[in-house]
């Protein structure tokens, strides 16, 4: 590796500098190494932008199938009627302008030994270091009858994709018969965005309260509890009366089978629930490219080093975002953004001679909108330990609980800060 920054080589670099400066940029870039990023979401877009800004002479290529990115965060606000799809769709032009080579194709296969990735279009990309941020795969048929075709009738809306899942669900909510039933099926841990289903319930209720106030929401959960539960339950009682019923696993909340044609959710104990609109958030695992490359363990997720995010199963592949195993860190956009930068520093240390971040701190904040001008949050500061990751004791936590009469200013401020979070973090990915 050409370590341009080491003091030892400084003398020889002086004599070489005139020639180096005269060389075209692309040639010099090649000598600094090649970083390939797969996946242009919260992890991958952040990694590509941060890498290019921090190491301008490293060649950075980003592979992402979609020509624009629809965020999962704020998708629930489309359901609530507060945002349009265009508000949560982002262009990759900003990354291109910074010098990232953006390729819109799907990465099909990783040859970890040969340091090569084959794309669906047939191109083969070579890399020195790979940042893999592929997101989740949905476990089709883990809930009997729930496959890709069923997701047209019972949308999951649990990835951004081309935006069609979230707009499908929104359209169905708008067409809900008066006094109709909206059913949700919510998976067991771990899954993408732990508070997401509950923000979704809130935003659906926010819409129905105005458009269809006698409608009901039945939230069938495979768990006994959930993220920010007290805060959400307070908000539901304060804002939506008895519109929302949350059914935990112990009260037969686990949905085992769906029948989209007859609009049925069937529970563990065989109870059939007819719904007018169904939102099935199925169990998940790492996206297929990570599984096919042999990076996942029996859980379906990718074990990684807690300092570098290098996959345990392969050298020079750093796996960030929802696909990895990083509990108790949540599978959130903010964690993907935060860990992306540590992973890039670690991946490029060897190539550039610039140090990795030796004592990294990982940061998460998740805002959830529960109503109009009403948001709550959870924050946490994580550090690597010998065994994994640990939340820093006596810090972080959730918004204060209490009567809305005392906390309305806090809820309103958090809703504004949530909007600022969205603007700020998407700028850190795409601007």
């Amino acid at each position: 590796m050409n370590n341009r920054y080491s003091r030892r080589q400084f003398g020889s670099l002086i004599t070489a500098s005139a020639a180096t400066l005269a060389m075209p940029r692309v040639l010099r870039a090649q000598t600094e190494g090649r970083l390939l990023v797969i996946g242009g979401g919260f992890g991958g877009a952040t990694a590509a932008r941060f890498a290019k800004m921090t190491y301008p002479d490293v060649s950075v290529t980003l592979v992402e199938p979609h020509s624009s990115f629809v965020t999962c965060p704020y998708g629930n606000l489309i359901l609530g009627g507060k945002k349009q799809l265009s508000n949560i769709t982002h262009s990759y032009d900003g990354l291109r302008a910074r010098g990232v080579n953006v390729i819109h194709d799907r990465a099909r296969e990783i040859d970890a030994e040969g340091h090569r990735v084959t794309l669906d279009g047939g191109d083969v990309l070579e890399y020195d270091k790979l940042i893999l941020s592929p997101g989740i795969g949905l476990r089709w048929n883990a809930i009997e009858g729930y496959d890709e075709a069923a997701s047209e009738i019972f949308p999951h809306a649990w990835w951004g994709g081309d935006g069609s899942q979230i707009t499908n669900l929104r359209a169905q909510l708008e067409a809900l018969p008066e006094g109709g039933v909206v059913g949700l099926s919510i998976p067991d841990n771990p899954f993408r965005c732990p508070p997401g289903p509950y923000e979704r319930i809130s935003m659906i209720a926010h819409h129905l309260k105005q458009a269809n106030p006698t409608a009901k929401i039945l939230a069938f959960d495979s768990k006994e509890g959930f993220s920010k539960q007290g805060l959400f339950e307070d908000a539901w009682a304060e804002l939506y009366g008895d519109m929302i019923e949350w059914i935990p696993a112990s009260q037969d909340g686990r949905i085992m089978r769906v029948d989209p044609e007859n609009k049925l959710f069937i529970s563990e104990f065989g109870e059939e629930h007819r719904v007018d609109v169904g939102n099935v958030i199925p169990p998940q695992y790492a996206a297929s490219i990570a599984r096919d490359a042999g990076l996942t363990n029996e859980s379906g997720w990718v074990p990684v080093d807690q300092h570098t995010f290098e996959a345990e199963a392969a050298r020079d592949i750093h796996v960030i975002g929802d696909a990895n195993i990083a509990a108790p860190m949540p599978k959130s956009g903010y964690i993907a953004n935060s860990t992306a930068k540590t992973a890039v520093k670690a991946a490029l240390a060897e190539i550039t001679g610039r140090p990795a971040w030796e004592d990294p701190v990982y940061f998460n904040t998740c805002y959830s909108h529960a109503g109009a001008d009403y948001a709550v949050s959870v924050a946490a500061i994580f550090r690597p330990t010998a065994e994994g990751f640990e939340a820093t004791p006596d810090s972080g936590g959730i918004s204060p609980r209490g009567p809305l009469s005392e906390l309305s200013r806090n809820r309103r401020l958090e809703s504004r800060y949530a909007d600022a979070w969205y603007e700020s973090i998407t700028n850190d990915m795409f601007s």
Partner: protein
Amino acid sequence: MRRKRFFAIAVSLTCAGWPLTALSEGANGQMLAQACVGCHGASWDGQGAITDLRGYDRDSFLRVWEEFRTDERPATIMNRITRGYTEAEVAALADFFASLD
């Protein structure tokens, strides 16, 4: 960096007690500050009602941080966040933000 350390030591001789005497002790301010861009602007330049951190006076930063940490300053979330960092990390953040234009 060396000059800033010297400045920090000089401050420590003239002010009593933490936080104004805090030393960064090698903590990486620039990387720690990456956590802040999720809300405080992609260049720490502020976002909506959220504070612009560029050029923040070092002593003021340390004072405000301590007020958040001890709930002496009204907060929605910064009280929870400030409790998660060491003295050296906070000093490194203060040095970093003070160095930005």
